[in-house]
């Protein structure tokens, strides 16, 4: 898929790099994505904390599980003790001695006043130049609504502006995220840190996510290479593009996958299902008997662990030119069907404890898009559904989240006229489009058995697009 973006290949070549640099054109850097068996980190993780943090042991334990090597900012020398307790390799960060680093991790949870922000400044001021291309930045804060004072809440909210600015100024394929910790969420940081610090989140940047107590109350820590082992995953719209990539990613991580798509795609679907050692379910999710058929399939498998609502269509017209059937079909496929199927499965208790529902929304649903009033409505409605469903599903031990892809290189986006396509690709901090696998990895992170502390989240997979930001 990467080869679709010929400008990316050109500007990465010797001559292309010189020419684009001379002309001041965008110089996208090829994203380094996660590959099983390859190191997850690009280099040592530089760790820093504002004074008063209480989560360093949780961070050390998570980093140890990743096999991370750490360096500590001189103002955070206490890290040495936490690292020692968890046998994490560590050393003092010295700009001229430490070489290229793979990630910067700052614990801002204890910042409650502007004085405390000095540590944030010092850490990034001193370390950011050491960060390698494709590096990662993660700031961990306290969710503003849980802060103890107005000033603390305001500052914690302010971190969002800070991290998003870093994403825009550091570039070089570096992804920057903010994690807002909820009370009791410390123990379930592992899967989120593993996602944000590795190549799994290559095209996710400028995002904020809350991590709280897992909906099941316990933190699952599966084998990282086979995190979905023993889990059954339903993926709709799975015969091609993003849906197929989602199925491949879950199969890679050890899941039993059930690929669903419309009957005309049945043969493709069966082929992919067989290749992935999964099952095929050829049906139209908008047909009257779809809900019952899916519920029956779930029952036959002892329930699903993960349901990924990826199926979607576009029928683009400006509202004046749009026919009623174009309006209806988009809303039916993209919004009504996934919502009603989810309700049906939850009522039937066909999603097992520590289960996941993930909707594939869209940047269109956040920013709106010319000619997509129907599509944007349906995708924004999914975000609304997440907000209302998440607390209800939590009582069943199930989380409900959404991903909102930006410009992803697929057959669908390849059909966009050149000028618009180029604008879509470049108008983000990565200066390139994402790949289906970037969406898939994000969904796999939501679906990770250890991600029960993330519920009601909407995460964009857009390379920090300028749209809707």
């Amino acid at each position: 898929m990467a080869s679709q973006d010929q400008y990316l290949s050109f500007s990465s070549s010797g001559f292309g790099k010189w020419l684009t640099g001379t002309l001041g054109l965008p110089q996208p850097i090829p994203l380094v994505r996660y590959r099983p068996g390859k190191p997850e980190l690009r280099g040592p993780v530089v760790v820093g904390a504002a004074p008063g943090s209480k989560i360093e042991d949780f961070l050390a334990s998570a980093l140890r599980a990743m096999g991370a090597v750490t360096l500590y900012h001189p103002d955070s020398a206490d890290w040495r003790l936490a690292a020692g307790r968890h046998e994490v390799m560590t050393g003092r960060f010295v700009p001229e001695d430490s070489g290229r680093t793979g990630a910067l991790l700052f614990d801002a949870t204890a910042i409650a006043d502007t004085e405390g922000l000095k540590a944030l400044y010092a850490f990034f001021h001193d370390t950011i130049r050491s960060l390698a291309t494709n590096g990662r930045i993660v700031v961990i804060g306290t969710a503003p609504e849980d802060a103890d004072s107005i000033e603390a809440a305001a500052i914690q909210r302010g971190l969002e502006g800070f991290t998003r600015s870093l994403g825009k100024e550091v570039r070089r394929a570096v992804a920057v995220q903010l994690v807002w910790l909820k009370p009791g969420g410390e123990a379930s940081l592992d899967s989120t840190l593993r996602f944000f610090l590795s190549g799994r989140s290559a095209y996710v940047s400028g995002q904020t996510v809350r991590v709280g107590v897992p909906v099941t109350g316990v933190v699952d820590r599966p084998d990282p290479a086979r995190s979905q082992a023993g889990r059954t995953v339903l993926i709709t719209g799975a015969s091609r593009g993003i849906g197929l990539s989602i199925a491949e990613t879950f199969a890679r991580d050890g899941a039993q996958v059930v690929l669903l798509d419309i009957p005309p795609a049945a043969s493709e679907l069966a082929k992919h299902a067989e290749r992935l050692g999964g099952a095929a379910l050829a049906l139209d999710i908008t047909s009257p008997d779809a809900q019952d058929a899916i519920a029956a399939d779930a029952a036959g498998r002892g329930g699903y662990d993960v349901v990924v609502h990826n199926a979607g269509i576009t029928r683009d017209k400006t509202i004046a030119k749009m026919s009623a059937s174009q309006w209806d079909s988009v809303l039916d496929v993209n919004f009504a069907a996934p919502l009603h199927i989810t309700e049906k499965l939850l009522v039937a208790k066909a999603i097992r404890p520590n289960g996941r529902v993930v909707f594939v929304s869209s940047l269109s649903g956040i920013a709106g898009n010319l000619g997509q009033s129907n599509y944007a409505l349906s995708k924004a409605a999914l975000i609304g559904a997440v907000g209302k469903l998440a607390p209800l599903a939590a009582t069943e031990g199930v989380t409900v989240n959404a991903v909102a892809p930006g410009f992803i290189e697929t057959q669908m986006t390849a059909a966009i006229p050149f000028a618009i396509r180029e604008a879509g690709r470049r108008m983000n901090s990565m200066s390139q489009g994402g790949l289906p696998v970037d969406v898939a990895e994000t969904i796999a992170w939501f679906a990770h058995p250890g991600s029960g502390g993330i519920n009601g989240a909407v995460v964009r997979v857009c390379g920090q697009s300028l749209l809707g930001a």
Partner: protein
Amino acid sequence: MSSAPLPRRVAILGGSRIPFARSNTAYAELSNQDMLTAALQALVDKFNLHGERLGEVAAGAVLKHSRDIALTRESVLSTTLSHDTPAYDVQQACGTGLEAAILVANKIALGQIDVGIAGGVDTASDAPVAVNEGFRRALMRANRGKSTGQKLAALSKVRPGMLLKPELPRNAEARTGLSMGEHCELMAKRWEISRESQDELAVASHHNLAAAYDSGFLNDLVVPYKGLTRDNNLRPDSTLEKVAKLKPAYDRAGGTLTAANSTPLTDGASVVLLASEEWARAHDLPVLAYLRTGETAAVDFVDGDEGLLMAPVHAVPRMLEKLGLTLQDFDFYEIHEAFAAQVLCTLKAWEDPVYSRERLKLDVPLGSIDRTKLNIHGGSLAAGHPFAATGGRILATLAKMIDRNGGGRGLISICAAGGQGVVAVVEK
């Protein structure tokens, strides 16, 4: 005047080293001073010794620039240790690091000091290249000249060729002109050490060190430096098939020593913190193990009658006799892998009745060791061998192994140039 107390037990509290790097790689632009300072500062950070005045710091390097007269002291001054901490340089070829530790330990044992740091550093990437000897002599003569005429006469002896032929440090014995590898090749032939057995030892070294890194065992002994987090000589996927393909390095025709079963030139530094038990208690630092004793031996290798690297073979029985121990009374053996053949010659010599009787003056050979206890977390063949830094690496690793084991006893054996060898016993 202090009273002369009875010898005290010397505690090993821990060590720090930077990852070792094959020469002319990650540390190519660094000096011994840089690397020793980095390792020292890491130890100071690890044990929170900022501003502490220690009894002494003893360290050294084998390849030294003439400017490094006070290498160790200069490093101390670059760290956050109290600058009132005295320091001196030690130099005993590859035995430097362990010899430095024995020196510091002896002072602690005698009550002269309570705490000290021992270590070593070496780089072959920043070797002391000197000016041509003829050029140097001409300069000295010009310097001695009383008149301008005498000075010019002396300088007139300078030839352009002198400027292009600097004096390079040689990895060769001064008295035989043979490189260490050539000497070890002679030993391997004399002791009939097979290529296969050498290769097996080398591959095991890589696998053991890789496992030590993977399990996190080395996480508190190694500090990241210049982008390295592991020794870059380490080849975790090393196999017998791969190393068997290499051509002999020192004797192209009939040799068995290769680039895989010999250590490469390496850059690196290591340091170890030693203290009295009282000092450790007062600073709330757990004791990993005790440095019980050390022994140094030398052999006359010049006429070829004894192998260059056989001195540890002599040192160990002398030390064991004093301690009343046998070679089998150990849980861990750390025999420095300068060359796989050196390790195998050492083990074979201890098993050989004739050699033991004639050379070691032993009625009964020391016997064989349980090979599963040998270099279990890897050795110099995998980690690399920055000459003076090897002793500190081994000492800290062994102390941690003994601590992890809940106690035990370990033997260290390090061969050195000049026909010398330094050995020690660590226990808890």
